[in-house]
């Protein structure tokens, strides 16, 4: 896990303990208000018989279009003389029932099939997938109307069908989650212990899906209420069932006579729908936590530059570099606390440390590709005497790909999956030097051959998912050295590769360095790689360099105790297990 992930993405785990979800909800004003509104509305619906004794369908011709405030009709009466307040209250139950039927049908069908489709083998999964594709093909509202002769306008039957039509959404969510969880190692561990499928589903899987389901339910209830209102508006369904949609239709017709008739049902409907949507959003925030924020893609980090050192003829000089990130509580957390390095032209410097030491952050700072919320608190980075930290993005971009190059750690995720390998390399070359497309292509083919790819033309036309990890790394190396850079920064270039491939890549890097005279800054945690490639070493921990020197000195004669401890942890080549297999003891642990 890199530092970036720690700060920008709070956790890889999206499940929060039971207690704090509800707690979070209670602390969110949006959630509290919407829940209160919905609660009040539902209560009004439940207590309707006690709140009004007027029959919602009872037409009193004398009250024809009565304005609000008429005695006996607080909110007035509609054009048939029916009491509006009574109709409003009764409509609440209609909407609530509609919402609940639609949502629960969708929930039950979608969840059950989602669990089945996600957990069990491919044939079952394909079958359920096909079934729900079928359901999704039905054009919703249209179908409900078309089936009017069948449902005879009963809104409950209609909502049932609507629930079926809504279920593919839930199915997809549940199925994707189950497939995700099913492949997790903790489910494997449970299977090893002999947990039955049912218990695994119950114990391990259901918990993960409850969040998204609850969120989807809120939205689905809103959706069902909306559809039912729409249908009632169109006149589908029985006249004797009061509903907001019907009231809105009547109000719409009476807009010039008594506009207020339109207002009451619209307000109620709008309130219910809005509350459900906003509650759904709050639920999502409570369950899934902070979502990544949008921010300027390429803002230069806020910088405080120290005086650059007196002329140093080294190629790259980093001085007292400090990088920090803002914490949720408003402070700044330093991840690099004052790093100084120097790298001479044509030499190799190994930046060694364990995870969290800040070595990758330092490398990114040199390239100018730190994440947008990074802050450079102090320090200076000079390349050939030129200060990099106060360069505007446009100038920095000119350096990248031309004088400073980068090889990433994980080859596959660093190639754009939608373009061929060749297209990406050509684009990179043309961004840093003026070449025609034809010349760029020729150069790329040349480079691919140079980095040891056996069939350059075929690789050129391949997509990233069609080539192996080792080949992908060679491609990335080709892209990096295309412009013969003076400084190459390699971030754990062999960590993700097999050991035999690793050795070949190290050979390649060494050859390229000798051929082009590049200076190489290699970030790694592997001392073997360092021993293979590097002239100099800098050891980092906790954001700072604790020791540096020539490779030979550091390996043979480490001074700092951290370096000594690190080197001591390396498993010696000569140590082999000498004790014989143990005789099993009787229950050793009481």
């Amino acid at each position: 896990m890199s530092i970036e992930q720690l700060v920008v993405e709070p956790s890889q785990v999206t499940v929060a303990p039971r207690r704090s979800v509800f707690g979070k909800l209670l602390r969110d004003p949006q959630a509290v208000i919407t829940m209160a509104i919905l609660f009040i509305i539902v209560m009004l619906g439940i207590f309707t018989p006690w709140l009004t004794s007027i029959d919602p369908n009872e037409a009193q011709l004398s009250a024809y279009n009565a304005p609000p405030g008429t005695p006996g009709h607080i909110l007035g009466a509609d054009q048939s003389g029916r009491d509006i307040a009574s109709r409003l209250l009764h409509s609440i139950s209609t909407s609530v029932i509609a919402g609940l039927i639609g949502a629960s049908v969708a929930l039950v069908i979608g969840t059950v099939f989602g669990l089945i489709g996600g957990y069990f083998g491919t044939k079952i999964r394909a079958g359920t997938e096909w079934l729900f594709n079928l359901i999704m093909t039905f054009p919703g509202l249209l179908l409900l109307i078309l089936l009017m002769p069948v449902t005879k306008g009963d809104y409950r039957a209609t909502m049932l069908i609507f629930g079926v039509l809504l279920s593919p959404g839930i199915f997809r969510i549940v199925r994707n989650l189950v497939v995700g969880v099913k492949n997790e190692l903790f489910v494997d561990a449970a299977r090893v212990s002999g947990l039955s499928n049912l218990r695994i589903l119950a114990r391990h899987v259901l918990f993960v899906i409850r969040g998204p389901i609850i969120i989807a339910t809120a939205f689905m209830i809103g959706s069902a209420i909306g559809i039912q209102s729409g249908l009632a508006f169109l006149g589908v369904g029985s006249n004797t069932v009061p509903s907001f949609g019907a009231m809105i239709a009547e109000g719409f017709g009476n807009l010039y006579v008594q506009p207020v008739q339109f207002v009451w049902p619209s307000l109620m409907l709008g309130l219910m729908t809005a509350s459900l949507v906003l509650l759904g959003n709050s639920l999502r925030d409570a369950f899934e936590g902070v979502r990544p924020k949008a921010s300027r893609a390429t803002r230069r980090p806020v910088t405080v530059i120290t005086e650059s050192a007196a002329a140093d003829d080294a190629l790259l000089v980093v001085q007292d570099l400090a990088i920090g990130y803002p914490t949720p509580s408003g402070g700044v957390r330093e991840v690099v606390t004052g790093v100084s390095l120097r790298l001479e032209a044509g030499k190799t410097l190994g930046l060694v440390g364990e995870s969290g030491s800040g070595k990758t952050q330092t490398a990114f700072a040199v390239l100018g590709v730190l994440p947008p919320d990074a802050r450079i608190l102090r320090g200076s980075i000079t390349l050939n005497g030129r200060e990099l930290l106060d360069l505007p993005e446009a100038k920095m971009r000119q350096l990248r790909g031309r004088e400073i190059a980068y090889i990433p750690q994980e080859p596959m995720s660093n190639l754009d999956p939608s373009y061929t390998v060749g297209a990406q390399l050509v684009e990179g070359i043309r961004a840093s030097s003026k070449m025609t497309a034809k010349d760029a292509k020729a150069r790329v083919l040349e480079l691919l051959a140079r980095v040891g790819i056996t069939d350059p033309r075929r690789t050129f036309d391949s997509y990233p998912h069609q080539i192996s990890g080792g080949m992908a790394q060679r491609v990335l190396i080709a892209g990096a050295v295309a412009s013969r850079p003076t400084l190459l920064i390699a971030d754990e270039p062999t960590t993700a590769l097999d050991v035999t491939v690793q050795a070949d890549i190290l050979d390649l890097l060494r050859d390229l360095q000798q051929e082009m005279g590049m200076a190489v800054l290699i970030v790694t945690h592997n001392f073997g790689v360092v021993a293979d490639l590097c002239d100099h070493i800098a050891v980092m921990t906790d954001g700072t360099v604790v020791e540096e020197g020539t490779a030979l000195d550091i390996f043979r004669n480490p001074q700092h105790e951290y370096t000594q401890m690190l080197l001591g942890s390396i498993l010696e080549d000569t140590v082999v297990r000498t004790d014989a297999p143990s005789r099993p003891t009787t229950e050793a642990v009481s």
Partner: protein
Amino acid sequence: MSEHFLEVSDLRVSYPSRGFRRPPVEVLHGVSLTIAEGETLGVVGESGSGKTTIGRAILGLAKPSGGRITLRGEDITHAGTAERRRISRDLQVVFQDPYTSLNPSMTIGDILSEPLIIQGTSSKDASKRVRSLLDKVGLPSDAIERRPREFSGGQRQRVAIARALAPSPKLIVCDEPVSALDLTTQARVLELLVDIQRETGVAYLFVSHDLSVVRHISHRVAVVYKGDIVETGPAADVTSQPEHPYTQRLLLAAPVADPLEQQQRRAERRRLIDLQREQDEQAGAVA
């Protein structure tokens, strides 16, 4: 009579391939190995070699398409769920990724007691055992109420080890248990595994891509290459004087942590590669 605790004979595993009617892809082409009680067998290979599949087949997470796996003489090749429950008293697992091998929504206490409760242990006994397990792997007992995300990678791996130890198994399949850990943590976790073996006499099937790790903990080593075991033998021999060309390449490819020695090894590797290429060409010319 088989005196081996675990015996794998001619194991084959195939996976269905992507196309509509394409034949399945065979990942293991008939591998055989044995593990005695209290012994560590290291299984080393690169990605795609099938080394992890061997472990998964033994654990029942991958279906064998041929061959036999016997545990204490009993055939467990196609064991069902109920049998697995019984077998898990003797056979457990520690996975590679400490971040996804523990259910993030369960407490450490629940995670550790789950294998015990399945076996029918009462929750009182399970609690006691959980405490002693935590002690054994060097974690504080207040971890019981906490969740995995509050712990570091190394600590989580200790929890995974404790979970594996819960039913006092005789064999633990360790699938790259230290690959995701830092250098210093790696060393400590390996020490822990060796100590536990010395104390309890548990056997390990230790799968890894790292020869130096395997060398450190194994009594015997098996080398896997493209679905076949190409070499087996005592750890000392296989990891310093290997006979099979692939093992030789593997050994020389791993860089050694000393500049001058690494220079030598590089030269040796170059020589070996040239030699092997000549041999291949001669063999090709003759054929």
